[in-house]
């Protein structure tokens, strides 16, 4: 005769709380040498890089704000932000979020973890939160380190904005901080894609690479002459939308859309990863994911999200085509020129003028007369005219523009030599970089053209 054991001290299954599971996941993540190395690199390397580049005679002028690295310490962190959005952040999310589930597959520890925690839901929450924590730590390191390196090496001077207007050090600090906060949204989106890849593809290396591959594909897409609604519907746009913070007035439309789209991606990809994780059969030790399942359960919903977002953006903003139109280019070039002309005037110790007095205008055309003056290209040519108080004849200067599909342009002065034809100007204190020789600018893709 037998009887079932009924101990008084035998408790029903006790699941581990999310905070405890989170701490457990954090311990595991931080114990990995590659995570430690990344944290160190993100907190040290940007400071060294920015400080070193700021001391060079040749600056990375093809990078946004790169040409101002000698002028202010705030430019360095923005150069780092541009680089981070292109390469570093998608790669960091790959290494952290892309591996957080796959590592358990690789180590064969799922059963152990399930027996210990007793709740796949809590395991998912703990892993997502732990990887998010590490990613935030890495982004904070990039921001703090590059800022510290720039300020220490160059100093806390005013920053020239993307339309040439000067931002006081306090304004620059606020906008730099805001810019770094804004890129957290697309970083979250790519982290969620990392979770999704890690859950869907198991120990397959494709899971680890997914955020980096998706980011690369989206960057390639951003380089194509896509309609503006499609461009804004991709989370990668938010990696460059912070540019709009450095114009006056601030180009908030694309920035806010970029953030909302990124957060939608973050939520959708996380929910998909969660649903797939809960459906997973943990009794199968050789789980390697399935390419077909990845496409149908993860790829298709995200593709549908893009389609819906494109439709909503197209109807809500009325944006069509590339968003780069002749009038918007002309306004942007004239505005930047006027701001920078004042800067040059100050450098040369001439009588001060205001933008209103200058009444700068630009006449821009693209390619030959047979080509419509719209869209990206390096064949834009602008003639800028301005007036000085008491002088009847308007001054003119010529610029060649290289305008990329995301609305960024680099204006290259083509004369006259005294205004924009030479990279240096002779100031009372010696030669200085000529702000009108080459300058960067930004066309608001969503702005309404006006006459």
């Amino acid at each position, binding site marked *: *005769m*037998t*009887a*079932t*054991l*009924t*101990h008084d*001290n*035998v*408790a*029903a*299954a*006790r*699941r*581990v709380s999310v905070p*405890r*599971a989170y*701490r*457990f996941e954090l*311990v*595991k993540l931080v*114990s*990995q*040498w590659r995570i430690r190395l990344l944290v160190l690199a993100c907190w040290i390397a940007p400071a060294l890089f920015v400080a070193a580049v700021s001391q060079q005679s040749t600056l990375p002028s093809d990078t946004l704000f790169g040409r101002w690295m000698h002028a202010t310490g705030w430019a360095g962190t923005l150069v780092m932000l541009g680089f981070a959005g292109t390469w570093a952040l998608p790669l960091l999310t790959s290494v952290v979020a892309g591996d957080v589930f796959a590592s358990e597959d690789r*180590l*064969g*520890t*799922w*059963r*152990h*973890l*399930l*027996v*210990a*925690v*007793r*709740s*796949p839901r809590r395991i998912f929450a703990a892993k997502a939160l732990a990887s998010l924590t590490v990613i935030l730590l890495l982004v904070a390191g990039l921001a703090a380190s590059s800022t510290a390196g720039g300020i220490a090496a160059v100093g806390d001077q005013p920053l020239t904005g993307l339309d040439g207007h000067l931002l006081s050090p306090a304004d620059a600090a606020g906008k730099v901080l805001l810019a770094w906060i804004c890129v957290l949204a697309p970083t979250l989106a790519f982290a969620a894609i990392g979770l999704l890849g890690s859950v869907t593809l198991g120990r397959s290396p494709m899971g680890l690479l997914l955020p980096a591959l998706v980011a690369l594909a989206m960057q390639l897409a951003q380089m194509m002459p896509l309609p503006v609604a499609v461009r804004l519907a991709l989370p990668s746009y938010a990696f460059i939308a912070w540019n709009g913070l450095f114009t006056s007035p601030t180009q908030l439309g694309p920035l806010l859309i970029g953030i909302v789209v990124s957060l939608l991606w973050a939520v959708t990809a996380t929910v998909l990863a969660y649903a797939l994780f809960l459906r997973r059969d*943990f*009794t199968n*030790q050789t789980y390697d994911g399935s390419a077909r399942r990845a496409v149908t359960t993860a790829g298709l919903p995200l593709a549908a999200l893009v389609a819906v977002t494109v439709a909503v953006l197209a109807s809500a903003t009325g944006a069509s085509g590339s968003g780069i139109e002749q009038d918007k280019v002309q306004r942007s070039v004239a505005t930047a020129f006027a701001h920078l002309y004042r800067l040059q005037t100050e450098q040369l110790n001439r009588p001060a003028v205001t933008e209103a007095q200058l009444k700068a205008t630009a006449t821009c055309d693209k390619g030959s007369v047979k080509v419509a003056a719209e869209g990206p290209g390096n064949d834009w040519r602008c003639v800028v005219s301005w007036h000085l108080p008491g002088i009847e004849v308007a001054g003119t200067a010529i610029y060649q523009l290289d305008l990329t599909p995301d609305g960024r342009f680099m204006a290259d002065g083509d004369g006259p030599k005294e205004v924009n034809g030479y990279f240096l100007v002779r100031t009372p204190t010696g030669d200085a970089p000529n702000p009108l020789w080459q300058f960067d600018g930004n066309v608001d893709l969503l702005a309404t053209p006006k006459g």
Partner: protein
Amino acid sequence: MDTPLAVQARGITKCFGDVVALDSVDLDVAQGQIHGLVGPNGAGKTTLLGLLLGLAVADSGHLEILGTPLRRALAAPDGVAGFVDGPGLYPSLTARQNLAALAALRGHDARTAGVDDVLDQVGLTDVADDQARGFSLGMRQRLGLAAALLTKPRLLVLDEPSNGLDPAGKKHVHGVLTRLAADGTSVVLSSHRMDDLQALCSEATILATGRVVFSGPLSKLAAENRELDYRLLTSDPQAARRLALDAAAVRVVDDTGTRHDAEALVVRAPVPALDELVVRLVQAGIALRELAPLVSPLEAAFLALTEQKETGR
């Protein structure tokens, strides 16, 4: 008097797609008993151990662990611990950190949870601060056992705990399991090694292709197989062979091609016939230098039962 049961399984069936991993399996494990689970590869041992740990639920049947019926996954009551398919360890953590992290999951710190104590029990104190990355299979097994002990289990479920253990490690592990059982903890362990079962278990269940082919005391298992192969080493192998060929109920097994020792004689016989053969050898003036079963009675029983099942499929 009732014998309290830590595990009571009735008619457990578990399928993975078209594959029937467990087919109407019954299992009783008493409190304080070390119960062996044996069977060839693919017999369903790991699946059954996974059910005991609560990693999955049976498709049909009734399973009660420590008095709690298991109706959904991960609902095994507190007091159940162990591992299947090897211990789950994190190679970037040291042995101590692995255990401390597990203790922290349950809200204990390493000191109050007895991390040092369980490391000592499994003989890993000397390598407590080494990363698990460099551990041998045997050390990993012992650390996995230590992790299970940390929860002060009332039912310990272990999949091949002796895998990769050296004699000293095996002694440690056997000592720990025996002490646990003496203190009232029930242990269910799978093993391919019948000598381990013989050393540890009072009862065993043999699975073959998902079905129970034997369950009960080891003594009963050994007794079920009456005819064994014995190896005899004598002073006159040729004469001994002739006597064996003439003996009733004794068959000479011609396996010289598979043995290194051509002088030895292998016979298959029930115990009374073997006794008679020994008497006749002695009467014929042939010295008997060695007499031993070729495989242990348990192993022979296991092979007989599982081979019958395999051929009967």
